[in-house]
Structures are given as structure tokens and as C-alpha cells.
């Protein structure tokens, strides 16, 4: 977060005082509880969407209804949670108005502030993150505006997905749902029907995006993350690095989060997508916490295209997430680097799918699962090599680290190979933080928490080094904080 603030400051300096900032005055409004065609029409109208998008949503809804009627929510993942009552959820709530927000940090949960402190988050940032009504001291809207102008000069489109539906209908119609079709799965269908907002990015041919893009720049819409939809298109020979989420803990009243992320990568283009997910994990007894059911997929359509997913998942009570790569273009490359923590009663079932279609495609999977307390951590991954994918290569490494003896780690790799030239390597390890390691660290002066943080960060090194530098520094602290109290 510190990094993004710094970037914002630079943007501000580079582009001078803000002139075009605006604050939309949205009245607090909620769609009625429950899910029906009316809810969807309400959302679509609120977003002033074109007719085709409403149609698209309704089709998705019809499909979701048929799934819900036939088989209900999916239950194949290694996670346990009470059945969700989909009629007991609000599907649309406008962002809170300034009056409804806390007036100052004094009104914010001290525990939350203590965590910000440990992460080294500045007071201004703390205000934004905890939803304090912000004034001119830190005007996120103005920053976002100036930031956007810099991008516009480069021809990069970076806006909300509702805005894209209105302003860039051709791109949207062509690509929305082209990677994760409406019928893909239960939660993808639900998201397609009710997505409240999200991000749209288009990098034109030959452009290297001049800065790292972060959801954080669109803080105005931060409260609408329940059913987020992200679509990123990297045209030929382009590059973008995208950061999602932030290390600061995210409190949210919405228990169910079901996001969809679609990435499209053309010839010689590359997308680097980094996530730090720190939603509320629930308390020490497993009460509360977010259900995080995400569908993320990248289509490497072009030759020599490349996608790299890096994720640090420390939050949510239940996580169900498999960022995947469809390696269609010849020589395309897919990478998945993941750290997932389950502490207390958290459950994480996460991994990836690498689908090799093109010739000479290669994929790398490095997964680090950390279980503590009563946490359960499952790696679930598929490596699939189709008949035409000559000389496909995959390397998979799944390491699990256990803290304590009440937690669990599980590895569920699926490998399907239809081409004899494929080279597939799979390595898996499970280890514990040993008493010897802890005492060695303590003897050198580290306290238990510092020792656990150091050892865990060492365990995750191969993944953390793929995060953008400043993000990595914060993520390192976050790992330590997420595991506080798990040993000793």
C-alpha cells in the first residue's frame, strides 16, 4: 500500500493539481434482499447499462437458476461451510455516503488500527482503508483522475467495468465471458448475473503500460467488491502488471464474495497479475469471515504470450480459487505462484489449471500452503496436455508447512496427458516448523512471532520474489501478522 501511495504521489506531481476531480453524489441505496430478475434489472439500471448486457445477465441468471435447481452449490472442494441462502443476501448496495462513514479514526475498531500500524500504513491510508470520510488531504478521486490521464496518453484504458460497458461496447461484447463463459460454473454464472462492478483494462498493441495498475486506485468503488468482475486484454506485444487487493485487512459486511477475472493475452504480450487477499478470516473460534469463491482464468491466445499469476491468500474463512491458464498460442507460457495460509478455522482449497493446447507451451506451478491452528489447506491442480501440444512442459512444486498438530495439508494433483512428447515434473513436500528451528531463532534474539514470520517467509521465498518489490515487502509482514499466536 505504501508503494501505491508513493506512485500516486508521483502521478500527482507529474500531472499537477487536480482539475477534473468529481465526487458523484450517490444516495445510499440497496436493492431489495434476494435474487430475482427484478434484482438484476435494478442493478443493470443503476449502472445505466446497455440492453445487450442486461440480456447477458438475464441469460446467466436463467442458467444459474437451472443449476441451483438441479444440483445446488458445488461441493467437491475440500471445504465445509453451512449452505448459503441465496435469497438472504443483498446483491446491490451503493457505496456508503460520507455521512454514514466514521468521522475519524477514533471511531474505527482499535484492533484494525493496530494491524495497520504493524503493516506500517500511514494515517492517511488508514483513513481510506477503514472507510473514514476523507477530505482534501487525501482525495482519492482526484488522484485516480490524474492517474488515468497519464494512462490515456499511452492509450491504455483503465476504468470500471460498468463504464466500459457504456464507453467501449465493442471490446466488452467481444471479450466479456469469452474466457470464463457464463455456464462455466455455479459461481461464475451467479457473478455474471449480478456482478456489481469491477475493472476493465485494455492495453493496445505495442504498449508497455507505464505504471503498475492497482484496484486501489479506484478506491471510490472499493465497497462494491462483493461480485467483482475484472476483464483485462493485452493486445499484441503489450505488457501490464496488475495488482489486486491490498495487505491491509478488509472488513466487509458481505459474507459471500464470488469474483470473476478474465485475462486475454495476444501475440507476444504478457500479463502479470498479483493478488494479496486479506479479507476478514473470522475470529479465533471460526465465527464470521468471508467466503471467497473466485473464478480466475487467463487465455493465452497469441503465440509467445505469457501470463503469470502470483497470489498471497491470507484472509477469508473459506477460499475456493484456481487461477488458470489456457495455453492456446504456440510457445505460450503460464505461471502460477501461490502462498495460501489457513490459520484458526480457515479453509483454503486453491490451486491452478494449466491447459496446454499450443505447441511448445510451458507452465510452472509453485504452491506454498501453510496451515496453523485448526486450518485446512488443500492444493488442487490440473495439468492437461492436449493431443496437439507437442513438446509441452510443466514443472509443479507443492510444499506444505504445518504449524501445530491440529491443522491439515492436502495435495490433490490431476495430470492428463494426451501427447507423448510432454514433459511433466511434480514435486511435493510436507514439513513442520521444527522446535529446533524455533529455538535456534529465539537463541539469536528473535521472539516467537518474529521467528515464525522469518521461517514462514523463508518457506514462501520462491513465491514472494515474484511479487512487485514494494508489494512483497508488505506481504512479508502480512504473513507474520496472519500467523500471530499460532505457535507458543
Amino acid at each position, binding site marked *: 500500500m505504501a508503494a501505491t501511495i508513493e506512485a500516486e504521489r508521483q502521478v500527482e506531481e507529474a500531472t499537477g493539481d487536480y482539475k477534473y476531480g468529481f465526487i458523484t453524489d450517490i444516495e445510499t441505496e440497496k436493492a431489495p434482499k434476494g435474487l430475482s430478475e427484478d434484482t438484476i434489472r435494478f442493478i443493470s439500471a443503476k449502472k445505466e447499462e446497455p440492453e445487450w448486457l442486461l440480456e447477458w445477465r438475464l441469460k446467466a441468471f436463467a442458467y444459474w437458476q437451472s443449476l441451483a435447481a438441479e444440483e445446488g452449490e458445488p461441493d467437491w472442494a475440500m471445504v465445509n461451510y453451512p449452505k448459503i441462502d441465496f435469497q438472504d443476501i443483498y446483491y446491490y448496495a451503493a457505496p456508503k455516503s460520507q455521512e454514514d462513514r466514521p468521522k475519524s479514526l477514533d471511531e474505527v475498531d482499535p484492533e484494525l488500527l493496530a494491524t495497520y500500524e504493524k503493516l506500517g500504513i500511514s494515517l492517511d491510508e488508514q483513513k481510506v482503508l477503514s472507510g473514514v470520510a476523507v477530505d482534501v488531504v487525501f482525495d482519492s478521486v482526484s488522484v485516480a483522475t490524474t492517474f488515468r490521464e497519464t494512462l490515456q496518453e499511452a492509450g491504455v484504458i483503465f476504468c470500471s467495468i460498468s463504464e466500459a460497458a457504456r464507453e467501449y461496447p465493442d471490446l466488452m461484447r467481444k471479450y466479456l465471458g469469452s474466457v470464463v463463459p457464463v455456464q462455466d460454473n455455479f459461481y461464475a454464472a451467479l457473478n455474471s448475473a449480478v456482478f456489481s462492478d469491477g475493472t476493465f483494462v485494455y492495453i493496445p498493441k505495442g504498449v508497455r503500460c507505464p505504471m503498475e495498475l492497482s484496484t486501489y486506485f479506484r478506491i471510490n468503488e472499493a465497497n462494491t467488491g462483493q461480485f467483482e468482475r475484472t476483464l483485462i486484454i493485452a493486445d499484441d506485444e503489450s505488457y501490464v502488471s496488475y495488482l489486486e487487493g491490498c495487505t491491509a485487512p478488509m472488513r466487509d459486511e458481505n459474507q459471500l464474495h464470488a469474483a470473476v477475472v478474465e485475462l486475454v493475452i495476444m501475440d507476444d504480450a504478457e500479463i502479470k497479475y498479483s493478488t494479496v487477499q486479506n479479507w476478514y478470516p473470522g475470529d479465533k473460534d471460526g465465527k464470521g469471515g468471508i467466503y471467497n469463491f473466485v473464478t480466475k482464468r487467463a487465455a493465452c491466445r497469441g503465440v509467445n504470450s505469457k501470463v503469470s499469476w502470483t497470489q498471497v491468500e491470507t484472509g477469508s474463512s473459506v477460499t475456493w480459487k484456481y487461477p488458470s491458464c489456457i495455453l492456446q498460442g504456440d510457445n505460450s507460457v503460464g505461471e502460477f505462484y501461490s502462498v495460501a495460509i489457513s490459520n484458526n478455522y480457515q479453509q483454503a482449497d486453491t490451486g491452478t489449471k494449466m491447459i496446454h493446447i499450443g505447441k511448445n507451451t510451458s507452465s510452472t506451478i509453485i504452491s506454498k500452503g501453510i496451515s496453523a491452528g485448526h486450518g485446512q489447506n488443500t492444493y488442487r491442480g490440473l495439468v492437461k496436455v492436449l493431443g496437439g501440444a507437442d513438446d509441452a512442459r510443466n514443472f509443479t512444486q507443492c510444499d506444505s508447512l504445518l504449524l501445530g498438530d491440529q491443522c491439515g495439508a492436502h495435495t490433490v494433483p490431476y495430470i492428463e496427458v494426451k501427447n507423448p512428447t510432454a514433459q511433466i515434473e511434480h514435486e511435493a513436500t510436507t514439513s513442520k516448523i521444527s522446535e529446533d*528451528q524455533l529455538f535456534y531463532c529465539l537463541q*539469536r*534474539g528473535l*521472539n516467537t512471532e518474529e521467528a515464525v514470520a*522469518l521461517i514462514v517467509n*523463508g518457506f514462501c521465498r520462491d513465491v514472494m520474489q515474484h511479487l512487485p518489490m514494494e508489494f512483497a515487502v508488505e506481504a512479508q509482514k502480512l504473513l507474520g501478522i496472519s500467523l500471530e499466536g499460532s505457535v507458543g
Partner: protein
Amino acid sequence: MLEIKNLHVNVGDKEILKGLDLSLRAGEVHAIMGPNGAGKSTLSYALSGREGYEVTEGTATLNGKDLLDLEADERAGEGVFLGFQYPVEIPGVSNMNFLKTAVNSIRKYRGEDEMTAVDLLKLVRSKAAELKMDPEMLKRPVNVGFSGGEKKRNEMVQMAVLDPCLAILDETDSGLDIDALKIVADGINRLRAPDKAILVITHYQRLLDYVVPDHVHVLADGRIVKSGGKELALQLEAEGYAGLGIADDAA
């Protein structure tokens, strides 16, 4: 400086140290010898605060401060350093990062400011150079894939950087070739200072040829059974524990 009186230590249900007395003055080097299983490592763990080593009776103070009341990391903050018989591997954590974290944790305990990255790098590099460690080793993960000798050398570098006032070295000389032994001896001798005390646990006279102790003690069956000057080590080397009337399987 270090005062141990009537120390009783249990491991599990078993009493291992059975009333041990030992006193080290500032500036002194003491050697402890004794048969396998006598309780030498137990003493070093009890002094450094390892979990599972339960003190049932007795006292241990460092410069008048009650050590037994402190957690292991607090004892390190007070200047206690234990050189491990088997140094531990920490994958993915570079030696440099480990030392940086250790130095700053200790400084924090003492209420001092963090050391800047530049100062720290200088300090660690110079200590590594003194002990003839290849600076590339500082980038490698702590002890991972190090040879036995390299691990012990690494212990000496850590000791030099942390600059403890009480160093306890548990068989730091075991399994070393002659060059590595000299490095370890050099590390110990460099630490020798009027305001520091060093406790060397060893089975062999050959280390004591390089690190000349002020006192030598024999630990058997949980107690110090004999103390003397450096000639006691020579006598042991020549006559064995039996020559002193101590059964070799005392424990």
C-alpha cells in the same frame, strides 16, 4: 559474572543436572569436559532457556540478573549466545537476513534503534572476512547445504556479529578438520575480552591447545566433580575419566 548455584534440571521426568555449581568471572574462559550423557548440553540449554529443560531448584545469574526468569530470546538480549552442537538449517532465509533480524531484535530488546542496512552490511562483511568466510555464503540460506565445518564457521560469524557477553560453545570443535578447528579457535579468541566470559564444552584437548582455558571442569552425573587449571584437560587426555575415578557411563 555467571553464577550458577545448586542447579537442578529435569528433562521430562528425569533429573539430569543434580545440583551443579559453577562460577565464571569476567574475562575468563572455562572448559567443561565430561563423559557422554553427563548433562553438558543440558546445562547449555538450561542456561539459554530452551523449552523442556525444567529448572527445579537452584539459581543462575548473569551480572547479578536472574537468567532463569527470562525467556530464551530475552536471555539472548542480555548477551547470552549458544554455539550449537548441530546448527539448524532455515531454508529460504539468507544468512544476511537472519543476522539482520537477530541484531535488530536484540537492539530492540535493549531499547536501541535499529541498525541501518548499510551499517549492518559493513559489520557482517567485516566479521565474515575476519573469519575467512566467503561473502557469497552470506547470501545463502542459513546453514542449508553447508558442510559441517562451514556450519561451525557460520556459528562463529554469528557470534562475532552479535558480540555476546556470555558465549557457551557446545562441542563447536567436534567433527572439524584442523583448518576449521583453527577458525573456530580464532573466533573464540577474538571474542575474549575483559568484560566477557566464555564457556567451552568439548571432548578434546586439541581445541584447548588453541583456546587456552583459565579453568577446566569435569561434569559427570549432573554435577561438577572436579575442577582445575588447564593441566586437568591434559591429565584427562592421558588417563581418561577412569583415571579420575569416574565411570565412563556415569549417566
